[in-house]
């Protein structure tokens, strides 16, 4: 197990290197010259040449790559071409917002998907089963940007229940003020801000998790010890909660973990609609401005996080199910 972990950690290096190489090359293959965007249409050819030189983009590609990797290894990911700030600073500022959103979305996924899955499993092949399946699938079938705008229209403008955009103070910082000043207002406000974006983001995973819960439950409900429990005359509710659920949830936990990685990277559209100040929006902006250092820095960051989550999931899977051997 320990050896396996170490080996997997070593395999990180080629994966991240591969991600970096792909990003570095594709962003430079994309037509569009950062210098031209920076000086705007009003810029003259001399202006563009000057800016290109200042940015170091006139050097040969392998040299640029070498310089980038060398500096990155020392923790210097460069400066944003457009925002002027240090890339790491930008990424680390956006990170908490993305983590907060992904975490809340994960909570919502579980809160919605697990009951749906259980209902479906307890009533297999009935209308309830189909109904909950379709309900779970609706989320993944909906164009999220459409749902997002409609939801803001309804809950912010028509009903006035929720704020229309942004993150508010943020949940963690708001807990800080809760402890220092005892005011719950910040936490409440942050939750109101996060509700719609988190729900929108959760929609993508609900169907998958609900489906897994359903099949895992079905499997467990047919196992001997559950049958025995039933035979002993325990109530169905008790059977489900006490015996079946606990065992069924083990594999679900790992998949839910895997979803966390997807949620981290999947917030691009959600963050754009809800003006949520996270990594997804940072990257999309950077791509549209050909802000090479920001694209590179944030994609490497996202990719590393997703890889770590994937690794943790694999490890926990091995931990839960010792039958899996790693050769």
């Amino acid at each position: 197990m320990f050896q396996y972990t170490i080996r997997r950690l070593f395999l990180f290096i080629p994966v991240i290197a591969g991600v970096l190489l792909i990003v570095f090359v594709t962003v430079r293959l994309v037509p569009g010259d950062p210098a031209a965007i920076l000086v705007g249409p009003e810029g003259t050819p001399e202006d563009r040449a000057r800016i290109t030189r200042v940015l170091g983009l006139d050097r040969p590609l392998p040299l640029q790559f070498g310089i980038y990797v060398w500096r990155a290894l020392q923790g210097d990911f460069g400066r944003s071409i457009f925002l002027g700030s240090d890339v790491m600073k930008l990424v680390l500022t956006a990170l908490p917002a993305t983590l907060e959103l992904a975490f809340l979305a994960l909570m919502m996924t579980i809160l919605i998907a697990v009951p749906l899955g259980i209902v479906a499993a307890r009533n297999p092949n009935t209308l309830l089963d189909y109904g909950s399946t379709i309900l779970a699938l609706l989320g993944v079938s909906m164009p999220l940007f459409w749902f997002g705008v409609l939801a803001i229209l309804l809950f912010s403008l028509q009903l006035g229940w929720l704020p229309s955009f942004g993150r508010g103070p943020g949940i963690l910082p708001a807990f800080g003020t809760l402890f220092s000043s005892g005011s719950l207002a910040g936490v409440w406000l942050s939750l109101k801000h996060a509700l719609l974006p988190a729900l929108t983001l959760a929609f993508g995973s609900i169907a998958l998790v609900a489906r897994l819960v359903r099949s895992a439950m079905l499997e467990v409900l047919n196992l001997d010890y559950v049958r025995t429990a039933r035979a002993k005359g325990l109530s169905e509710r008790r059977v489900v909660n006490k015996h079946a659920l606990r065992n069924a949830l083990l594999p679900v936990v790992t998949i839910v973990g895997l979803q966390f990685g997807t949620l981290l990277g999947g917030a691009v559209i959600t963050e754009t609609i809800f003006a949520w100040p996270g990594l997804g929006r940072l990257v999309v902006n950077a791509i549209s401005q050909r802000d090479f250092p920001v694209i590179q820095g944030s994609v490497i960051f996202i990719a590393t996080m997703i890889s770590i989550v994937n690794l943790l999931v694999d490890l926990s899977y091995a931990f839960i199910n010792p039958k899996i051997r790693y050769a």
Partner: protein
Amino acid sequence: MRYLSLFLTLLLVLFGAVMAQDKVLNAGLDVDAGTMDPRLARDTSAARIQELVYNGLVSLDPELVPQPELAESWNFTSPTTLVVQLRPGVVFHNGQPFTAEDVVYTFTTLLEEDFGAPRRSLYTPITNVEALDELTVQFNLSQPYAPLLQYLDIGIVPNEAAAALGADFGDNPVGTGPFRLVNWEKGNRIELEAFDEYFKGRPNIDKINISVIPDNNVRLIALESGDLDLIHSPVPPQDLERLVQEDKFAVSQTTALGYTYLNLNLADPILSDVRVRKALAYLSDRNALSEVIFFGMDQPGKSFLLPNTFYYSDEVTEYSYDPERGKALLTEAGWVDNDGDGIREKDGQPLQLELTTNIDPNRQQVLEFLQGEWLDAGIDASVRVYEWPSYIGDVIAGDYQVGLIGWLLLTDPDRATFLQFHTEGGNNYGSYANNTVNELLEQGRAETDPNKRKEIYTEVAQIITDEVPYIFLLYQGYVVIHDKNLEGFVVHPAGSWKSLETATLN
């Protein structure tokens, strides 16, 4: 007794502080400012914010006439020497006094090649700037340069602080302006606070929170649901009618300092024929574009002389929508539909034109509209809409036929013409060349008498109209929508929010 009055005063101050609610203005923008260093600013958001944080030597009033700001007065002692007298008693947000050295530093760094100022070429006629004394600076020019005063609205940065911070100055701006930066979450939110020692007096608004909301629908909903007090262009034109009728909001519209045009690539064999270009001009229904797509927000265009400016002239002729005349011109140019497929051809080649622009819902609709009109006239018109970076790259490289672009912030007719139509102009993407135009543009640049300049640019506008390197489709509109609680906001054609320094919030 003395203590008692002191105590009472203190109590009053404390009580007042508790009583007085901060007056906070919440504004929304579509994109964040790239930087808050005015020398490096290039996007309109950065321009909006830097006017609040900094002051220029001059500011442009809504008629674009330079008014004294940090400069008290100025005088051209020779056609190539400008002496500026500075305002005494101005302090920066960090408490440092404003002096001639700051002006010298601002323009010297701006002109340094490696500094990377995007708009450096607007200032290159300046040879150097020198401080004659503490409050007098002199600009030495390499040639007479009439538009210079217009460009002196750029914010002045403090010499010492800017030099000390280097590249980080853009994140930690220090200016003399009515508001100072308190907090900036990049790409998301800017918080400004009234500057107590502002030389024109502390603003009435205590705080301005500017939120970046990329989606047009969401930004508008945020205003209507009360989360924002002020938004401005881009505003979906189709929503204006409804908003005008709402009591809660004040909607101000004006013509912006920009035009949207079709850039015809004269290096293209089809478009090198002036008859084809004229035909396209007759086939483009500007009134319909203005009404159908912009709901009157953008007005039908005519030439590069912008309406509501001093230089606008009625004398310049225009192409009214006349499809029959357009078709006749195409036939005259030898483009005839011989095989009856609805598309004209000449020497066996079909009349194919590709219209391109960047991703923008309104621009896209303009091209879709024109495509339909042109198809009816027998032109095999196709539309391609793609990302701004790729698009502008193709335009710069001359790799396009008919490109829809816009020019913004045209505070002076030189800015709308010299780089675009001069043979040596850096933005002459369509390879337009006319020696008379070259000479006139050079004269216009050197001439200081506004009336003579007006004559020169009217003449250029007429030549450009006759030779059609551009088809001027629309004069861009500028819209501000704000809550009526905000009073005294003056809509400015350049999109300036400067009047927030005197506006009041109830």
